[in-house]
């Protein structure tokens, strides 16, 4: 996993083998704004999943500093109850410049856990804003966590993160204003068109539910796990899953190609960029012409 994260090209064939050996685990993506209670919820979910003996892997992602490249990875603090359980593997990852809410090598790490026999792999994204929707293209079930008191019903009808949920969770339900948030989300869902694939009776294969949870009291956690399992079953037995897996594979392919292109681009241009940037900042050269120049002799193939 460390080598996958280091991103050197030598590990690509090995990761390819791992990819082919994987495909048995259910991949759960958990996303939401910073401080909405994602890490604590993951910890509670892991506890619930472990009750029936399933093995759980967790990839917990926190942001890298845009300035130093360093990161403080603090998700483990909330997951300490599982540290000594061999059926639970937790790995912290930094985004390292990736902007969609995932770390660059998160998906390779998921494959490794999947191939290693973990039944459920949970990806906890960085705390996101409104537009980091990459997780929906990487997970079989996407849970979006909202916390009470962070916006009104207009927030709920905006495009972006709220649209990607297979399951909505409102955390901190021991707070009095949580019912308002639940109502707003339900209203949003009732107003929208259900974009889920239909069965042959023209009924949607999945209705997005809203689950209220309190990690403080444990309320709603079992219900959330039951809902996740219900979505997993729908995913595994209906067109919902086949369609999703295709989209995931497509995204993964483009993403992998993009990363490869990016790293080769940086390697092949690193010695020339600085001189170009000087000229661009003095407005002697424009970024359009400069990028054409950089691309023109880029060796895409080796």
């Amino acid at each position, binding site marked *: 996993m*460390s080598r996958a994260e280091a991103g050197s090209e030598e590990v690509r064939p090995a990761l390819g083998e791992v990819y082919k050996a994987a495909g048995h685990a259910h991949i759960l993506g958990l996303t939401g704004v910073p401080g909405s209670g994602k890490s604590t919820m993951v910890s509670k979910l892991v506890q619930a999943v472990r009750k029936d003996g399933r093995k759980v892997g967790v990839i917990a992602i926190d942001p890298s500093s845009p300035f130093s490249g*360093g*990161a403080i990875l603090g998700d483990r603090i909330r997951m300490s109850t599982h540290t000594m359980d061999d059926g639970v593997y*937790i790995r912290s990852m930094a985004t390292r410049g990736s902007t969609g809410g995932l770390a660059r090598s998160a998906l390779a790490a998921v494959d490794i856990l999947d191939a290693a026999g973990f039944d459920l792999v949970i990806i906890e994204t960085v705390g996101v804003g409104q537009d980091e929707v990459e997780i929906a293209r990487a997970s079989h079930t996407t849970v979006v966590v909202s916390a009470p008191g962070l916006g009104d019903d207009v927030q709920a009808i905006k495009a972006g993160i709220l649209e990607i949920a297979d399951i909505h969770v409102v955390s901190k339900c021991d707070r009095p204003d949580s019912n308002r948030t639940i109502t707003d989300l339900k209203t949003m869902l009732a107003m929208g068109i259900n974009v889920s694939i239909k069965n042959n009776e023209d009924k949607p294969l999945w209705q997005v539910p809203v689950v209220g949870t309190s990690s403080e009291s444990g309320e709603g956690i079992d219900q959330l796990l039951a809902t996740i399992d219900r979505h997993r079953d729908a995913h595994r037995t209906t067109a919902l899953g086949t369609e999703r897996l295709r989209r995931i594979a497509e995204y993964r392919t483009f993403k992998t190609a993009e990363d490869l292109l990016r790293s080769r681009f940086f390697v092949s241009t690193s010695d020339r960029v600085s001189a170009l940037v000087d000229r661009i900042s003095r407005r002697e050269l424009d970024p359009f012409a400069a990028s054409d120049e950089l691309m023109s002799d880029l060796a895409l193939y080796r």
Partner: protein
Amino acid sequence: MSSPIRVLLAKVGLDGHDRGVKVVARTLRDAGMDVIYTGLHRTPEEVVHSAVQEDVDVLGISLLSGAHMTICPRIMDLLREQDAEDTIVVVGGVVPDDDVEPLKKMGVKDLLLQDTPPNQIVETLQRLVAERGPR
């Protein structure tokens, strides 16, 4: 593309003072390292287990409780048991001068005590990781 140095910072045992370890975490972050912080009151077993799962280069133990001569040997033993003795162990906090040599004999690579300036912490970790070489 080289990976950032990966560090796990741990508070072990009955020691609730984490201002220092948070300053160190921030310092290392600003030096471009990935810093995993475990939170307060961890056991040596939990710390070593986390260090193995996270595959860190450096395990930094913050101790202000005076329990270092009990906790450090336990951590070194567990690292050997887990086949992870290539983890660089560094201790920070308050340790009497007389205990410094015994801790180093045990395998603690360096002690960064209360007067250590931040840049020296960074330089020490960079040097220790460079000396160890790639894994």
